[in-house]
């Protein structure tokens, strides 16, 4: 029985302590759940960190993921989001020979700009919805990007 798989964003608030991240990633690998992306950073002025995990699975699997996450002792809260603002950042390195103004115009359309111009390369950044970052990365293919790094999504409930 193959159930429909959906993309989902799950946020997890955890106590900032040793090996808490491995508890979470072990849970995903041990139970065969997908991680599309995972970001983590401390929550300011608290002993907690916030993880944003982009995953996919059937409704039943997503429900299990949130329940299993919640079972981990250092997990305070798990949000399975519906109505969210979601952003992702990407950094892209281009050869200096490419058309800088074209690249800059494209970046601006995706909340970005050129952030560094060196001797041989330029580095641009964009920050937008993950799907739009995806589109952007398609669009810049013809400028021969040398390296791309994506941050993974972060999200907040509306």
């Amino acid at each position, binding site marked *: 029985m193959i159930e429909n798989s959906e993309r989902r964003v799950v946020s997890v608030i*955890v*106590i900032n302590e040793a*090996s808490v991240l*491995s508890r979470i990633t*072990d849970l995903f690998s041990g139970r065969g759940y997908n991680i599309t992306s995972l970001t983590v950073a401390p929550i300011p002025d608290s002993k907690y960190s916030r993880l944003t995990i982009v995953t996919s699975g059937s409704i039943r699997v997503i429900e*299990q993921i949130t*329940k299993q996450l*919640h*079972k981990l002792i250092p997990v*305070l809260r798990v949000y399975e989001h519906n109505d969210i603002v979601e952003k992702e950042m990407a950094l892209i390195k281009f050869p200096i020979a490419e058309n800088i103004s074209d690249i800059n115009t494209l970046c601006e359309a995706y909340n970005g700009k050129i952030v560094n111009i060196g001797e041989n390369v330029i580095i641009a950044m964009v920050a937008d919805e993950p799907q739009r970052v995806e589109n952007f990365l398609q669009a810049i293919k013809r400028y021969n990007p040398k390296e791309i790094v994506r941050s993974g999504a972060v999200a907040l409930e509306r």
Partner: protein
Amino acid sequence: MQISGAQMVIEALKCEGVDTVFGYPGGAIMNVYDEIYKQDYFKHILTRHEQAAVHAAEGYSKASGKVGVAMITSGPGFTNAVTGLADAYMDSIPLVVISGQVPMSLIGTDAFQEIDAVGISRSCTKHNYLVTDAADLPRILKEAFYIAASGRPGPVHVDIPKDVTAQIEKFDYDIKLNLETYKPHVKGNTRQIKKVMEAIAHAKRPLFYLGGGVINANAAYEVRELVHKTGIPAVETFMARGVLSYDDELLVGMLGMHGSYASNMAMSETDLVIALGARFDDRVTGKLSEFAKNADVVHVDIDPASISKLVNADYPIVGDVKNVVLDMLSLCDVVKNEDYSSWRESVNNFNELHPLTFYEDSERLKPQWVIKRVGELLGDGANITTDVGQHQMWTSQFYPFTRPRQFASSGGLGTMGFGFPAAMGVKAASPDKVSINFTGDGSILMNCQELMTAVEKKLPVVNIILNNNFLGMVRQWQTLFYDKRYAETDLQVQPDFVKLAEAFGGLGYRVHTKEEFDAALKDAVEKNVVAFIEVIVYRLENVMPMVPAGGSLFNMMLLEKKGEDND
């Protein structure tokens, strides 16, 4: 009080009321063993293998309801214990397992007997700790005991580097735990419980599906009351044997792969499943899409992740079974139940059509007879453990269990080698009962070194080896599904089990007949010694009835008629 980390371990165990610790020493845990030497708070039982120490702690916990404690050294001591941790994790057994670790300064250097113990135990424990400062030790140990026993119970592993056991710090166990991220939900939702009682009142063919959670919750007697007040028949999982007494007229039997025909048919026909502390394991449900197809499902479980994991619950209730059952009992009189007598009658008819039974043989002992016979001779006076295989299923089918915590067996992991050490733990917790381990000729060799422990510590476990010269359960599958290609299951070459027992200072018996068996059991029980009773049984007996893996519960293979030999 300023004491060392090692002394803190001892003091904490005392504060937790621990009276028995199972373990095995080694370099990294020596500071703690030095303190064990000096104390008289608790008994330490030296097993002859770390796996056995953990299984013994499991048996102890199963019989007593308390947290079992095991202690081991780093590296190979720890890896030997992993099977025990995994076993306890699968069967929700509360344990605290303390291991030594190389000193902090050496962690990560591939030091002698270093292994990433918490990395390994993470996926087979409820929680684990690497202690990096002795000042944290009182809190961590207190948390470990609390987490192990509360909510859905399970094993907690505490790994302590050697230098931490030497570090001197203040010890104060009178701390209030504040686990803001861990708050098990024990009280069931009242409105939902009312709805359940109404659903029960409207159901025509309701069925209780009782699981090991009832025993974890110490709720067997409340459940008995609920079953009788409502008059609803009940099936038990393997882990719930003894919740209802074997002779309870409302107990249909065990369900699942080797459950009774009537239990599986009742589950297939019911219109309302009332699951109490059961987790819809695949050995129980068979083909999921056909499981209890006509029924709404009530699921009471303390672990939200158990609910709607495999079978969708129409009435989910997160809470401790005991609390929920007490709430249900208080509503029993308010809600008028249907009269379920015709439903009970049809369930009884299933039982009459295909009763759980076996055919005797005049020449050869049947393994089922042995189990039934022990039931007749010892009954309520014995606590029972098993190893894994055919003998395990027959024990569940044919032993007359009368009370909760009478039975300990490895259900979820199915660990061969569990039975004997677990029986030692059971004996340590419950010395007034005879401790019987039903085992197989395969399984017993997986922890037979425990003869030494049992003899030394006077834990007179009677091991009844149902010798079929086979890894019988695997052989059964080969007979049924692999065209009798008996790949590596034929155990023709065997030790002399009598001499084996004797070599360690136990008693050994080899029996071929009913009379010999009775005499051997009587002798072993009277002499109150560690014993091996090797019973030569018919080799090719199959555990029946059976739902082939992945099949539907209502499609059981049934016991073949007498005369149609299955070899």
